[in-house]
């Protein structure tokens, strides 16, 4: 496989910027300093990343993108039981977001979001993950494994319940040390169990046929 010289440069910029942003924060890190540490000219850096905001978002999201493909493979709606898929997905998500590095990234993202206007860029990136979960849930609803409702809303609720037990204390540095596999598995289990009870198909009729029922329009925003 041929490795593109420009890709190597891009990767070097991302790595340097990631390190500097994490140590110094967004404001105190300048494109000049990034250039100085990577070497080469400022115009090269700008040709890869036209703005500091864009670069910040890209390097903070790089880890997320690497991890996403591994996690999304669990969302296979063709399986008979959504429980196993959601448990694997949930544990994998929790393991990722509760790692010390990701917690630090998340704090940094939140700290900068309101000030530097990067929130919108992050929101777009993070929505991609939610869209995949929502599509999986929509398929489960369509095949009668879950009751019909707004899949976007269901995805948000599941995501929130997955994080419910541990994200806040970790984010606020109240507890030290990452949760271990067992703790993560238990939290995922409890969230998924509650979610599946709440979204269990209503009746055998609904489970078997969805034909009699027109696609329910989105509940949200309707009132």
């Amino acid at each position, binding site marked *: 496989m041929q490795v593109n010289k420009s890709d190597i440069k891009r990767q070097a910029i991302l790595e340097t910027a990631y390190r500097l942003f994490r140590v110094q924060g967004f404001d105190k890190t300048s494109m000049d300093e990034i250039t100085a540490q990577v070497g080469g000219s400022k115009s090269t850096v700008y040709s890869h990343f036209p703005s500091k905001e864009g670069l910040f978002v890209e390097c903070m999201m790089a880890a997320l993108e690497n991890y996403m493909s591994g996690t999304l493979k669990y969302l296979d709606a063709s399986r008979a039981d959504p429980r196993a898929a959601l448990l694997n997905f949930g544990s994998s998500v929790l393991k990722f977001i509760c790692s010390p590095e990701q917690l630090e990234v998340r704090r940094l993202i*939140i700290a900068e*979001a309101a000030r530097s206007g990067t929130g919108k860029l992050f929101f777009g990136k993070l929505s991609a993950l939610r869209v995949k979960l929502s599509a999986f849930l929509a398929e489960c609803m369509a095949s009668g494994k879950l009751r019909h409702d707004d899949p976007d809303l269901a995805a948000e609720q599941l995501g929130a319940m997955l994080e419910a037990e541990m994200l806040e204390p970790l984010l606020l540095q*109240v507890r030290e040390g990452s949760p271990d596999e067992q703790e993560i598995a238990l939290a995922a289990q409890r969230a998924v169990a509650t979610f599946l009870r709440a979204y269990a198909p209503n009746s055998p009729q609904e489970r078997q046929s969805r034909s009699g029922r027109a696609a329910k329009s989105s509940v949200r925003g309707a009132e």
Partner: protein
Amino acid sequence: MKTKTEVKRQAILNAAAEVFREMGFERASMSDIRARTGGSKATLYNYFPSKEKLFFEVMHKAKAGELEEIVGGLNPEAEDFKQQLLDFGKNLLVVLYSPEAMAIRHLTIAESRHSDIGKLSFEQAAAPIESRVADFLRRGMKRRAIRTADPKIAAMHLLSLLESELMQRFLLGMLDPVKPETITSAVRRAVEVFISGYARR
């Protein structure tokens, strides 16, 4: 009798509250606050080492009182369990998603990177709310309004569901001022899912 230091400290807190309310956290400066209290900048910094600490003291304490009242409103003896949750959820989100509270929470997370503000806030606000809600749910389980489960976990599920539609946007600084109708309908959806997730079968 109040000591001179306490009087001075309170005067700074009052002035800061005014300045933050008028200008917002970002625009307000320690100089603005000093201008209202008089005295030197060194004295001000002596009481509060940073604008962040000062803001936390001012706002956090005010909101903690409001939150306390809301949690206190949960009545485990009330006939209609669901209505209790709906009222609680609405009152809670109205406070949490007020511009001031959103500013405090943003700041708290940002500052928890290099101070114990996050820990303080969790211990003084989040943890007590969680345990009071858990108490309420425990009573609900006893009354068979919901199935028996770990009330602490159920409380965390309820609280996270209540915020599920707003939290991400808020944390990313993308939430416009939240309308009461938005809160009412988000709370209704959250409580419905909570109740069916914890229904007795």
